[in-house]
């Protein structure tokens, strides 16, 4: 793999002011300045290949946004090496940021009181985009992101979903090979989320744009990312495929069975009865020990069955368990 992003031993320590309590503490706060040093990012290393779509995950305060700020050149790390597109992000800011696109879900890069189209026109001058390429990209994004209904509306009057679509368009007008997305679906309804996801997928597939995505919405990750990087307390916990993560920490698969008649005993070897309600029962079973078809075969041999369905373990549950039970800490 020829990495477009190469991160080695990345560290960022932040100084946070220390406050003392009580009357004496107040006085102490006034005359002295003491700081705690927090390792926001603590020795992270990874590579990202061109064209990958990577989910960068972690609980609040894990160091995701700090990493993203370093990768976009907004922060200088305390230690470590970073090369993105062959450049050190914080050293040549102006030339570097011309080669990336970034969308921070909580903030807009557009001009608040200007219509969307005028912000985009200004970006054409800022990024020095040739007019024909600008026109071509604008036409394409207008279609894909359905921008037309609000292209002439001031940004301040847009809904969150519309603003996010306009921001995505702005981030990609100059054809960057790399796109950083920090919670792009935060606060959006299901329809708006799906539209954004489908756009990200298309940009990644059609244009080969490398995408780094941080999000708390694991449906984004499930639907978009082939690879996930999980960090917590500034340390890298996992770097690999989502199916592998599910296999290792995903918990049990579930089989929901509707029996044709009432049975006193419904125990089946290799599966655990997780719940029972009337004629319906839910079995839990380990993927490695028993296949769904074997379990269905065993059940069909013993009971008359009306209907059944298999539920895969939820990614959200898996990630929640990883965070909560610190399954990756070792």
């Amino acid at each position: 793999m020829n990495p477009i992003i190469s991160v080695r031993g990345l560290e960022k320590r932040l100084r946070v002011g220390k406050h003392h309590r009580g009357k004496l503490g107040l006085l102490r706060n006034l005359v002295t300045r003491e700081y705690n040093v927090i390792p926001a990012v603590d020795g992270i290393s990874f590579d990202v290949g061109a064209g990958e779509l990577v989910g960068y995950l972690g609980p609040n305060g894990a160091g995701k946004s700090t990493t993203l700020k370093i990768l976009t050149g907004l922060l200088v790390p305390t230690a470590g090496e970073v090369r993105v597109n062959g450049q050190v992000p914080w050293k040549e800011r102006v030339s570097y940021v011309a080669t990336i696109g970034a969308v921070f879900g909580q903030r807009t890069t557009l001009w608040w009181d200007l219509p969307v189209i005028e912000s985009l026109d200004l970006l054409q001058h800022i990024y020095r985009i040739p007019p024909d390429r600008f026109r071509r990209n604008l036409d394409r994004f207008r279609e894909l992101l359905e921008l037309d209904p609000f292209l002439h509306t001031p940004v301040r009057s847009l809904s969150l979903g519309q603003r996010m679509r306009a921001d995505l368009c702005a981030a990609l007008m100059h054809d960057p090979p790399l796109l950083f997305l920090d919670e792009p679906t935060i606060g959006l309804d299901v329809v708006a989320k799906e539209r954004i996801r489908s756009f990200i997928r298309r940009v990644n597939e059609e244009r080969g744009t490398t995408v780094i995505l941080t999000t708390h919405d694991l449906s984004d990750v499930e639907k978009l990312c082939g690879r996930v990087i999980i960090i917590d307390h500034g340390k890298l916990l996992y770097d690999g495929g989502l199916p592998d993560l599910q296999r290792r920490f995903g918990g049990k698969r579930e089989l929901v069975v509707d029996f044709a008649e009432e049975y006193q005993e419904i125990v089946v070897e290799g599966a655990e009865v997780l719940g029972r309600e009337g004629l319906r029962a839910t079995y839990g079973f380990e993927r490695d020990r028993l296949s769904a078809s074997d379990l269905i075969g065993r059940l069909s041999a013993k009971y008359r069955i009306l209907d059944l369905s298999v539920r895969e373990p939820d990614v959200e549950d898996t990630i929640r368990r990883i965070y909560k039970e610190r399954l990756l800490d070792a």
Partner: protein
Amino acid sequence: MRLFWELCKISFQRQLAYRASNLAGLVTNLFFGVLRAAILLALYDNREVIAGLTQRDAVTYTGLTQAMIAYLHLFGVNNGLMNAVYSGEVATDLLKPMNLFPFWLAKEFGGSVVNLLLRGTTIMAAYALVFPITLPDNPLQGVAFAVSLLLAWQVSFAFRFLVNLSAFWVLNAQGIGRLAFTVSWFLCGFLFPLRFFTFVVPAIFLNYAPALYFLGQPDPLGLPAFAPFLAPFVGAGIFLAAMRFWQYGIRHYQSTGS
């Protein structure tokens, strides 16, 4: 350069978009201008000349200084950069491939031009309707006024930019801003055209010097004849300082993330 003018154009449009705010500002400036003129006339108490200024000059002076309030942001109301630092908006600006100092310069300049055209000229026109006012005697005086007005904006921008930059280092720079603007307001001769208020050189190049050029008055400060020619150098000096501190500020931001 093209980008600079595009940004100026955009900020010009932005300022125009706030119609109610522009109108409210204009009415307020006019109201207090008339009030100041009335107080000054009362102070003259039938005397014709004080400190080299006639009653007509003094009234014109209040009109000119009122007309320059919004153009030069004399009350320090524009804390755009300070707010951008605190809200994190400066981070999104840093993601754009351009030098941000000219970006802020253009952003402010466009808005100031609107203020000069809308508020400045309307206030002077209203003054001309209500009071007898002094006008430049010859075109040269008018040109000198225009040049000094531009230099005044340069000094004003650099001064405000420097004050706003303190946001990179302190948790709340509003207090520093208020103090700085109150002092400059006092020292630039906004309140009264009196000698002892105008001894701080950078401050006189805000609204005091342009007003004197407009009135065609000899320098009443007793400064040497070359003093007015210092304006560009003073402007350039503060400007360079602002650029330097901007770089320090960005470096500080990049190392602390706040």
